[in-house]
């Protein structure tokens, strides 16, 4: 018992000393490394910022690995902050330092973090040549790498990646719908054609995201497809997405579908979205339907209808409905805005 006791005490004491040493050591090492890094960055940062402004500026040759790594880090950091012509000299510097080529190779690195960092860099520099490798990374076993690949494809903006991005919404290695939607938004109008194809023939999730992105990117040519989805799609999420998209686009062509949705006894979220969309489209023919929706038992629907009536300039319809709190709230808002 006594020997076991002494042995245990010794082990625990050793562990305690090791933990204290680890904490103190980490603090000390971090302070030293930070001081060295700050000193080097203070020298290099102004040169790199000058390079971004004037591509004739020359950055000193990186003699040591430490200096080269600092240059890469700073160039990458600046690249994320600048726009337009200022990006080109930074991308060229990264090319010269071999970092872009390394990133392309590292998309196959055994380490997930390295693959994700590689994808991130390729997206930040807008490397179109890496699209194929990034599409492959959409099915990576690591979620961070998949996400980074999707973001990078959005930054690069090649519409050829749209079908792969939509497919990445499903399966065990699926990517967050929000991340995919944002990537598709960055690709923008160039991706409308494959998105419409996805709206017509994809899975429910693909159709929902396609509808959302078409709305957010103002796909005027897709209004009839969206109107069809708003009324006829079997999936409620797709219908809601299509309704919101019609409202965001704000052009006529979908009013009939929206009016049918608002007048139905369907899901409250869809009816609220339909009311909001009718307000944004601005067709006065919707006023009677919206006025009737003030009585909707679902408060968000009534509130959306009241907001839509304001957008349509139908204040009078609200003024006669002081029995409804949503109407009074909108009138109060109008009064305060007028007073301001």
């Amino acid at each position, binding site marked *: 018992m006594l020997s076991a006791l002494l042995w245990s*005490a010794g082990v*625990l004491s050793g562990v*305690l000393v090791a933990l204290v040493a680890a*904490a103190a050591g980490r*603090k000390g090492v971090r302070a030293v490394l930070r001081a060295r890094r700050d000193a080097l960055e203070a020298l290099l940062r102004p040169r790199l910022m000058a390079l971004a402004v004037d591509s004739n500026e020359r950055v000193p040759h990186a003699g040591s690995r430490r200096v080269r790594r600092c240059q890469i880090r700073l160039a990458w950091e600046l690249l994320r902050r600048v726009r337009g012509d200022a990006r080109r000299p930074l991308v060229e510097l990264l090319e010269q330092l071999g970092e872009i080529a390394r990133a392309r190779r590292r998309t196959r690195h055994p380490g997930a973090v390295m693959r*994700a960092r590689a994808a991130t860099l390729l997206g930040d520099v807008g490397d179109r040549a890496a699209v194929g490798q990034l599409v492959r990374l959409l099915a990576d076993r690591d979620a*961070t790498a998949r996400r980074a690949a999707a*973001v990078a494809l959005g930054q690069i903006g090649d519409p050829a990646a749209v079908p792969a991005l939509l497919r990445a919404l499903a399966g065990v290695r699926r990517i967050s719908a929000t991340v995919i939607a944002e990537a598709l938004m960055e690709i923008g109008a160039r991706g409308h054609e494959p998105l419409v194809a996805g709206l017509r023939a994809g899975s429910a999730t693909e159709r929902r995201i396609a509808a959302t992105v078409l709305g957010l990117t103002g796909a005027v040519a897709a209004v009839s497809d969206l109107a069809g989805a708003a009324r006829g799609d079997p999936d409620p999420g797709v219908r809601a997405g299509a309704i919101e998209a019609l409202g965001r686009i704000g052009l006529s062509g979908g009013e009939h579908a929206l009016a049918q949705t608002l007048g139905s006894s369907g899901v409250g979220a869809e009816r609220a979205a339909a009311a909001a969309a009718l307000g944004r489209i601005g067709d006065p023919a919707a006023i009677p339907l919206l006025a009737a929706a003030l009585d909707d038992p679902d408060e968000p629907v009534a509130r959306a209808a009241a907001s839509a009536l304001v957008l349509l300039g139908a204040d009078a319809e609200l003024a006669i409905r002081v029995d409804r709190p*949503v109407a009074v709230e909108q009138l109060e808002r109008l009064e305060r805005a007028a007073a301001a």
Partner: protein
Amino acid sequence: MAALSGFDWFVLAYFLALNLGYLLLFAIAAADFARSFRRARMAGHERIFSSPLTPGVTVIVPAYNEARSIVQSVHSMLALHYPELEVVVVDDGSTDDSFELLRAEFGLLRSARSVPPLLPVHGAIESVHTIPGDDTLVVVRKANAGRRSDACNAGLNAARMPLVCMVDADSVLDPEALLRVVKPFVDDPERVVAAGGVVRVGNGATIDDRGRLLDLVMPGSWLARIQVVEYLRSFLLGRTGWARLNALMIISGAFGVYRRDVVLDAGGLDLDSVGEDCELAIRIHRLMRHGRRAYRIAFVAEPVCWTEVPATLRDLRSQRVRWSRGLAQVLRRHRAMLANPRYGLVGLLAMPYYLAFEALGAMVELVGLAAVLTGLVLGAVNLPFALLFALTAIVLGVVLSVSAVAIEEWSFHRYRRWRDLGLILAAALLENLGYRQLHAWWRCRGLAEELAGGRAGWGALHRHGFERG
């Protein structure tokens, strides 16, 4: 004598199991931190801010007699770096001039905005006030019903965003806190239903009027310093570990984000519970399991909520008795989940752990300590055994506390000064020499009060406020 000796061995085994369980949670948490930090560059928080798809958040601030800090608190909430934000302050029948201060500061006017009765609220809604032309701040005045949960439910009724963040009126959030705690919802919108953020001791923090942390030092009192260690161990590391197992049972009332529709489906906060934050999290687990829905309750260690912890023994005792009572109440109410495979690791692991080591653990600790001392006096226990007991119960506890400090230093290193490192290590040692035993006594009182019945109160916490820079 034999029984006493046998009991002593049981207590020894108990302490060993408790501390090893904690070490396992720490190991899980440390691995999670390491993984997160290596991926931080790819986290995409700046994209969350700029995306039109980022869900809006209503920050609900229940406030009762918070005149000292409510204006600064609301300013800091409004200054949070988040694209679509609404702040709903629920003035829960304050008898001081909390509302008047808000009205004067923000130019509030009475509004026709309705508060639909989606969740039960006992204190009647008296009025709603907004800033003219701006819906960002809403102040709901209601009659006091003696429970924070009543005010939170009123806030949930008034909220209009798909996510709700419930905070304490004296909480100070890092400006980026919402962006970080919302990230799980953005990354996994179908499964993530709630996310907790870490609460850390703000005594010793200097903040500006926008709630930004300007400086952080260890608090001046040893009681608060010990709580720094305690919060690191339990809140930061313990909860990260449990969340990794999708068995997180508590999202702190000081800082938690939920899907509003899920909270409404769950029935809101329990008006009779003093552990309403824990009770809501467990009820969400039940709701999801019963509905056979794939879900996750996340915990995000980086967004920080700074809170002022009790600096006097009286206030601390009141708080810890209430916490203990709340936990016992929740475990009793949801005892059907205990060891029930239907509830996954929550039922099979988390609830038995909390019952054995958190709810009943205080009793075992104190009785065990008394038994060992008695045994030593009576000769039923020899000195080597007593020393072994001390090693397991106390020294291992010190190792745990120092581990928490070391992990914090390696990961977040919020305390920059060498002096603070020295103080926090000293506090990690002191925590296990007297404070832990006193805390166990308070926890026993909480348990006894809950078993005896009667309505539990919140008590009043005397606050000094943060240093302003």
